[in-house]
């Protein structure tokens, strides 16, 4: 078995695994009960799925220029996805419809109450 065939097989596995993760994310998006849980689902194709697909693509193309581009795509996505997720999560937390009945504990609520208290006490001064 030549090296080319090995590369192709590994690339195929990576591509299919990436696509499967995308499907799982789609299912999760439809089935999960609230925004925050759906965001967990979104992280999957954006991180591991993307990495797998990029590795698969790199194994097929095998030229230096293309691999640098793919590395850049991966680096950009990995650097930006958490920032976007944090922005959305912070915009969502106290306002959007979050299923608090499904939370085991909520240690942020106490923190926000404390922060609001501090603001009230410091505001008149």
């Amino acid at each position: 078995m030549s090296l080319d065939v090995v590369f192709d097989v590994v690339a195929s596995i990576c591509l299919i695994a990436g696509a499967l993760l995308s499907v799982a994310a789609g299912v999760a998006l439809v089935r999960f009960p609230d925004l925050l849980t759906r965001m967990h689902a979104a992280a999957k194709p954006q991180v591991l799925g993307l990495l797998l697909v990029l590795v698969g693509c790199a194994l097929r193309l095998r030229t230096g220029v293309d691999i640098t581009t793919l590395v850049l795509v991966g680096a950009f996505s990995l650097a930006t996805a958490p920032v976007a997720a944090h922005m959305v999560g912070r915009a969502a937390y106290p306002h959007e419809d979050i299923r608090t009945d499904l939370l085991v504990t909520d240690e942020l609520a106490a923190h926000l109450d404390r922060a609001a208290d501090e603001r009230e006490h410091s505001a008149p001064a």
Partner: protein
Amino acid sequence: MSSDPSTEPTDRAHPPLSRTARRRNQAIAVTALVAVWVLLWGTLSWANIIGGLVVAVVLLAVFPLPPVTFAGRIHPLPMLRFWLHFLRDLVVASAQVAWLAMRVGHPPRSAIIAARLRVNTDLNLTLTAEALSLLPGSLILEADRRTGTLYVHVLGVTDKAEVERFRRGVLELEARIIEAIGSAEELRRIRENPADREGVPA
């Protein structure tokens, strides 16, 4: 919180940067931007490097970076260990979330957990938060810079014991990051407060 801005510049955890530290940060930023530029073009040539330098200098002049204190140095072996551990966590967490999505039955339960990091620097807070966000199953809702506390939404938690286990997990992640890039002082702080005793916010 930002309610008291007067304490901000003299805050012990976030001291202002010295001149050399600022220079070094700028040098790192320029190198990274030139690297991105060369990667975008795909070929390493003098024209690309000089073009990249011009773009990087203009960018840094127009959008100056916020100050970042980096006291430590890069330790290659712990760095490798961090990445291997991270990749393993990534695969495991992706599989877990996929399983939760496919499972028939009750909707998954989750929790919002506060984890107070032992090393309260902007860099450590950012890197730990980034690593946690990249893993499916944990999501940063809020980061409190003053106390160095991360508020994490965790998917698939069913009881209090798992909450504590996850909090320990966050601190272990922090320890791996500090071991990879931290200074001797930060490392000492991590070793003095093992993960199983710390992290519960006051």
